[in-house]
């Protein structure tokens, strides 16, 4: 009888389990919340503008990203008359999935990350912890509830064990750059969903009350292994008004003058539709929309309408050098598939379908970054060339064309594909995507992140331009 009562009680508790709701925003305020322009510079100049992106890839991605963070800390540069660490000039970090853990931790704890993060996350067998939680009978009842999934359980764990209950209110209170953008994917639209107040404004929700753990769990909710996370949408209840550009960009739909900008506007209108039209949002792994976290930065560089537009700063002549460091932990595991005539199985086919398009898309995104940044140089060079050629024909022929603001650009890539030795490259490319890796593997990932950064030709150009030096591991410049 007692057992039956206990079981009934557990079932009842299970039925009550639900996701923790993101808080409602009473009144929209453009000058409040987690926004790029609200963060204090604290010695971080705009003139050297540094964006870093961390890709997905579980602990492999987290360790590679962490190795790059360490290397940036140990890179000494000369800028505006004094020497400083390049890490102190990082303005924005955009992250996906596994890369979101070091990013979120750095947003919360700053340089204390280097003392705390390795034990809290990197070297910890998180995967075993998550599995143990899922196998705990009391959690079975909670997981049986329709609005509580395995990722909610994981978020509770990250909140307790990794982020110590930290929320965006704590990040806002730190009030320092970099602006850290954790990215998930809106399952319905397939659009990237960044955890910034500008996006939460659309939902009339206050990001300040959202735990970092929930943002990291959304960003890393790997489809299949982990469930999507649910967020409440209170759209239409806080007096929010879309920025001026949204209506104009949506009106451009028929002329197709800028389809990407129109699509961004339409996504915003769909999320903010009063009613709300979509009372709940389901967020899955950020890698579904963009596995390297570069789409947001690309839009910020190429659009005056982005919530943290870099182009606006460039137009205002505030940026002289623009550095974009892409840390990509993508792998290319070896396969025995083509050694046999057998038809590939369902799991193999589905895994291929889920990962190969993403890798191709990532390649195209990096290419687009190179082209976009090159445009800044090309247009200024063209004007200079025309002025020079016309002036050579005589004073009367001199054109004196005006040039847009000239920006030095440095697209830097840290990726396993740039490892020179084939054997070593293949070893890294065959690492699994998991939240548990052997300590020696994590050590190697940290070291290779540092080395690949040091070897990148554009990073070398940057160091030369800034009289910089990346100290060897454990050494000094």
């Amino acid at each position, binding site marked *: 009888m007692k057992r039956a009562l206990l079981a009934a009680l557990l079932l009842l508790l299970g039925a009550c389990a639900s996701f923790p709701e993101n808080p409602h925003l009473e009144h929209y305020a453009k000058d409040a919340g987690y926004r790029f322009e609200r963060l204090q510079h604290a010695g971080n100049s705009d003139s050297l503008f540094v964006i870093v992106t961390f890709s997905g890839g579980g602990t492999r991605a987290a360790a590679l990203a962490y190795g790059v963070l360490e290397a940036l800390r140990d890179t000494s540069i000369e800028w505006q008359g004094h020497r400083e660490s390049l890490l102190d000039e990082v303005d924005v970090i955009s992250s996906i999935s596994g890369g979101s853990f070091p990013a979120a931790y750095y947003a919360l704890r700053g340089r204390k990350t280097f003392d705390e993060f390795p034990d809290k996350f990197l070297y910890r067998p998180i995967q075993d912890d998550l599995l143990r939680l899922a196998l705990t009978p009391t959690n079975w009842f909670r997981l049986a509830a329709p609005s509580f999934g395995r990722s909610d359980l994981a978020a509770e764990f990250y909140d307790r064990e990794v982020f110590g209950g930290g929320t965006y209110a704590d990040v806002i209170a730190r009030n320092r750059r970099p602006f850290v953008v954790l990215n998930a994917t809106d399952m319905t639209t397939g659009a990237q969903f960044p955890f910034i107040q500008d996006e939460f404004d659309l939902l009339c929700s206050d990001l300040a009350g959202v735990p970092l753990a929930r943002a990291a769990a959304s960003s890393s909710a790997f489809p299949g292994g982990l469930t999507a996370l649910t967020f409440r949408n209170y759209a239409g209840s806080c007096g929010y008004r879309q*920025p*001026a*550009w949204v209506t*104009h*960009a949506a*009106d*451009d739909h028929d*002329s197709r*003058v*800028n389809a990407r*900008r*129109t699509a961004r506007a339409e996504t915003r209108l769909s999320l903010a539709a009063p009613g709300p039209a979509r009372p709940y949002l389901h967020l899955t792994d950020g890698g579904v929309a963009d596995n390297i976290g570069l789409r947001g930065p690309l839009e910020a560089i*190429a*659009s*005056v*309408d982005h919530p943290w*537009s870099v*182009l*606006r700063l*460039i*137009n*205002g*002549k505030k940026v002289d050098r623009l550095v974009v460091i892409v840390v990509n932990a993508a792998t290319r595991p070896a396969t025995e598939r083509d050694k046999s005539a057998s038809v590939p199985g369902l799991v193999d086919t589905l895994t291929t379908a889920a990962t190969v398009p993403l890798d191709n898309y990532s390649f195209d995104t990096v290419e687009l970054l190179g082209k*976009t940044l090159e*445009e800044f140089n090309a*247009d*200024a060079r*063209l*004007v200079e060339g*025309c002025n020079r050629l016309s002036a050579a024909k005589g004073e009367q022929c001199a054109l004196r*064309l*005006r*040039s*847009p*603001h000239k920006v030095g650009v440095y697209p830097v890539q840290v990726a396993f594909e740039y490892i020179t030795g084939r054997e070593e490259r293949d070893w890294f490319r065959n690492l699994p995507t998991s939240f548990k890796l052997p300590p020696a593997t994590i050590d190697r990932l940290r070291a290779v992140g540092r080395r690949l950064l040091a070897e990148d030709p554009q990073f070398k150009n940057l160091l030369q331009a800034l009289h910089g030096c990346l100290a060897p591991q454990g050494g000094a410049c």
Partner: protein
Amino acid sequence: MEHVIVTFPTRRLVYIDDEENGYTNEVLRVDAGTHVFTLGNLANFRPASRTVTVKGSSVLEPLEIKFLRKEGA
């Protein structure tokens, strides 16, 4: 990337879609599409704003968006 030049007799802040975006009489970069241009500081200019669809410009031939000084201002 598109290029525009917002002209006015003196140097003034340029606002594109309600956000600061450099100064008048300089070549500015914008993404293609319809934008609202206006000037900052004093309201001694006309028109009050200009809504322009920017496309097909180049750095050698930026699209000119003209503001004039208001008579008597």
